[in-house]
């Protein structure tokens, strides 16, 4: 890993948490990542049913990730954007094959660390583990908010919000994938989009 790449990741962790890079081992952690890895538009970070898992950091580029639902259908999950750390959580937590897919829709620069290496690092560096708790606590808030919006927010307002939040979503994701993100049928989603 180049020292400039490590600094980009360490700086991002500092930005996310407000914590000191040296005290919490951010630089050491960032040095465990491999990269920079150049990706072209259309390339995947990972695909469904992969056994080998990685945590990715995106320095540049945009894309979308999708979940494979238990009924075999695909749901839009979120946007991949600069500064984000992404992975397949099922693979990370349970060591099971991936149930999601992540595709870059523009050229991108990314870094990655294997899930095994990540855990090994956390086991040795407990200060970093406490940082992860802190980050995850924020993630829970975000997901609770998302769940509530999915269920209770006016669907047209929510669509306006999503278009702002995920520019290009209509271009790169199918209406069916978006409808699942909204928890509505394809025809309802079509109507919401038309009315907006």
């Amino acid at each position, binding site marked *: 890993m180049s020292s400039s790449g490590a600094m980009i990741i360490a700086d991002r962790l500092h930005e996310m948490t407000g914590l000191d890079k040296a005290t919490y081992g951010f630089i050491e952690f960032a040095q465990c990542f491999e990269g920079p890895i150049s990706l072209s538009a259309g390339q995947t970070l990972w695909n469904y049913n992969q056994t080998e898992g990685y945590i990715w950091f995106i320095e540049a580029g945009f894309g979308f990730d999708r979940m494979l639902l238990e009924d075999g259908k695909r749901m839009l999950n979120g946007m991949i954007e600069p500064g984000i750390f992404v992975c397949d959580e099922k693979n990370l937590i349970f060591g099971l094959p991936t149930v999601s897919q992540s595709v870059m829709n523009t050229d991108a620069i990314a870094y990655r660390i294997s899930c095994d290496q990540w855990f090994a690092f956390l086991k040795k560096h407990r200060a970093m583990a406490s940082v992860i708790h802190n980050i995850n606590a924020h993630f829970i808030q975000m997901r609770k908010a998302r769940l509530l919006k999915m269920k*209770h927010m006016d669907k047209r307002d929510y669509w306006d919000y999503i278009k702002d939040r995920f520019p290009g979503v209509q271009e790169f994701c199918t209406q069916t994938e978006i409808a699942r993100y909204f928890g509505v049928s394809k025809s309802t989603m079509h109507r919401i989009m038309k009315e907006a």
Partner: protein
Amino acid sequence: MRLFTIFRNITHRTTLTRSPDIHIDFLNRLRQLTVNLCPHMPENAVLSPFIESVEIHPEFLQNLGIQGSSGVFFIEKGLVGVFHEFEGKSRLSHVYDKRDIFFSNEVLSELNKQQTTWKDFGEAEVLFLNLGNEKLKSTFPQWYADIQMFISLYSTYQYQDYINSMGLDRKAHSIQWLKDHPNALAQIPRSQLAEMLNISLTSLKSFIKAVLYE
């Protein structure tokens, strides 16, 4: 014959000296769930003394985290609902049923922007493994650190799972949910149930009929 008698005596003695493990179901479920990240979970009998029976009421929830108590919950009987505040209204988000495991970080006051709270529907019987116990922390430092990491990751993953369920076909998902939670109809108000499943009351009624008269 003599060998058999010796063997039988040894077995008997071992049984007598081992502390009775009354929380085996809870701890086995926890072990299954955490096996990948916490491979060195202590023996059930060793963890059992740190488990207590609790009642999910507002004062108990207020004291979680503050009085050194936070950890893992397990439902032996009944249902516990999870409510979040949205647009000034308390909304039922999901339900924990018999043999479900859940974690205190869902309701700890720090970072609880959605004012998430638990509500016992009827008379739930809940067990609590208190990870705030100092003796537990100092006796099993490695496992303690591992389980904290697991809880942190799993809690976020759990919400992804609830989000994913929103993408499933509403009818199929709702009917399956009603079948999987046979006690829910008797304990949860219909309006809350419909809101939780993200369906109308009319749809809920027809799905209930489908389940009851199948």
